């Protein structure tokens, strides 16, 4: 198992479409993934992310569109000839075979000589740090262990593309976070192109070079995690990735620039909207809002503290602004924070650049 970077294949999906009866599961999805890239398809259930993955794997035939792997058109190629590795949500380890036989299975299918099989299986098990499990059966292993065996099995024949369908979904939170770290480092050291599907946006942001947000069968936005978080292009993306305050209204020119007028009539200074859009939403991340006392900001508004929620590492405040809308403010739980009483008058502020209009 070499450590040669950028060993992965280039993947291209063009105009994929798939309908089940009246439902358009995938509606015009086009995507390009570079060698060695880790791309995550992120979205709620029904967004088409799993169907897209299944089309790429060859288990679902698209109604329209093409699939290219390493430059070759594989749309009509059956799944077993696409030379990719796949990890499933519930591991899909063959229960009637030992761990060794499970991992050796793809090598046997490729008629690899016996001695070589043994070496490569043990190397793969070593890669996922489970060398002593070879003789055991899947049911004797824990969930996390089973997932790593599934990974070893998908990697043992050195595919150029790795597909993962919510592989960490069945694990508890702590285990999931540990596996995420392991997964990412493994992927980077192997340089294998990876396409990952999940509905968990934190997971997507932690693992990926690029996140593709999907909704109702099409792509909403595609970019590095920071882009998606800092510069969401649609309200859906802003809502789905991280928490945000979202106010409705419209943008109007004002004496000193532009203003966002909320439906309650509150006027907030904003940066110039990017033409030619007519933004109707005002999006502001809770952690970008500061108490006006802590320092100068472009914008400042008065309000009343409606509630305080203690979340351990963060404190969540709800501030009812004069003029109507409620903003959610989150601050890290630092020892320097000042306790504020519910019902107190507060003044909050942010910089214009921190807010986005959509």
């Amino acid at each position, binding site marked *: 198992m070499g450590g040669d970077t950028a060993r992965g294949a280039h993947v291209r999906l063009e105009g994929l479409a798939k309908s089940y009866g009246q439902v358009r599961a995938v509606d015009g999805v086009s995507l390009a993934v570079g060698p060695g890239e880790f791309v995550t398809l992120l979205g709620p259930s029904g967004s088409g992310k799993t169907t897209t993955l299944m089309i790429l*794997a*060859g*288990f679902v035939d698209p109604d329209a569109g093409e699939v290219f792997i390493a430059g070759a058109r594989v749309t009509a190629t*059956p*799944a*077993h*000839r*696409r*030379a*990719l*590795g*796949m990890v*499933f*949500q*519930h*591991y*899909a*380890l*063959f*229960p*009637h075979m030992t761990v060794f036989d499970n991992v050796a*299975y*793809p090598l046997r*299918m*490729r008629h690899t000589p016996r001695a070589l099989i043994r070496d490569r299986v043990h190397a793969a098990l070593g890669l996922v740090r489970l060398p002593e499990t070879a003789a055991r059966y*899947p*049911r004797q*292993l*824990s*969930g*996390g*262990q*089973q997932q790593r065996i*599934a990974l070893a*099995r*998908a990697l043992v*024949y050195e595919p150029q593309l790795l*597909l993962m369908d919510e592989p960490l979904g069945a*694990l*508890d939170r702590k*285990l999931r976070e*540990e*596996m995420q770290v392991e997964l990412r480092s493994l992927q980077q050291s192997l340089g294998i192109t990876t396409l990952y599907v999940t509905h968990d946006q934190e997971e997507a942001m932690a693992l990926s070079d690029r996140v593709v947000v999907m909704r109702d069968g099409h792509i909403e936005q595609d970019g590095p995690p920071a882009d998606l978080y800092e510069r969401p292009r649609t309200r859906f993306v802003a809502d789905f990735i991280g928490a945000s305050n979202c106010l409705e209204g419209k943008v109007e020119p004002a004496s000193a620039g532009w203003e966002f007028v909320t439906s309650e009539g509150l006027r907030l200074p904003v940066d110039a909207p990017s033409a030619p859009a007519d933004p109707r939403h005002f999006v502001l991340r809770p952690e970008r809002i500061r108490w006006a006392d802590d320092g100068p900001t472009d914008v400042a508004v008065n309000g009343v503290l409606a509630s305080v929620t203690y979340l351990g590492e963060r404190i969540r405040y709800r501030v009812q602004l004069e003029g109507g809308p409620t903003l959610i403010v989150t601050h890290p739980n630092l020892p320097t924070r000042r306790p504020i009483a519910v019902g107190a008058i507060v003044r909050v502020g942010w910089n214009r650049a921190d807010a986005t209009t959509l």
Partner: protein
Amino acid sequence: MKVLAHLYGGLVVLFLLAPLLVLVPMSLGSADIAEFPPRSVSLAQYRKFFDSHLWLESVATSLRVACATSMVATMLGTMAAFGLVRGTFPGKAALSALLIAPRFVPVIITALAFYAFLAMLGLIGTEKGLILAHVILACPYVIIIVSATLRGVDRSLEQASRSLGANPLRTVLHITLPLIRPGLVSAALIAFVISFDEIVVAIFIAGTRTVTLPKRMWDSLVFEMEPTLPAISTLIVLATLLVCVAAGWTRRAAGRLRETSPRDEEP
């Protein structure tokens, strides 16, 4: 209230097991007259049975027919189960109903139909004819059992196999068939029992040379009561019981094989 429930349950159990409770003791009695309770305890009836050339020949016939039926029905039924569970084509529901039909049509009608048809082909009184008839009777059961087992197979296992480079045929051979093996065994055993115990069709189709065990027993019941009937009955029950216990074991083995519930401990 509880006492009433226990009493009722006990009575029903007594009712259901009455044949065994009567026949087994009787089978240990005299070989000349069947009586309950038996005045003397011996294995005379059993010895007489095993000494009887005619009865043993019937057992052999029944075994031959049942084995053949089981093999053919399991093969055909399993293939059909695959087609019905995995395939999608118009009219599948109607087709399923048709294939299951022999199970739900009264046996006398099927027996009559077989009789007329096989007579036309000159297969009356032959084992081949009986096997054909029994296969038709047993296939629906095989289809139902194997279909249920197939539907319980985790599709992602087959997808994993294909993603790992195994074509559909090899996937079926290495993954699907081993996983449904308990269902296959169960179906084969049920088909065997159905053929072994089958009586109505046997009455119509049997000739003088193809007398199955049930047919000979029926003749004895209708014409001339054999005193060894209790022993024969006990043996039949024992044999059927053994087969069903075996079928039950394999079904439970199926459950254990599919139980891949991970123990969540270390990562």
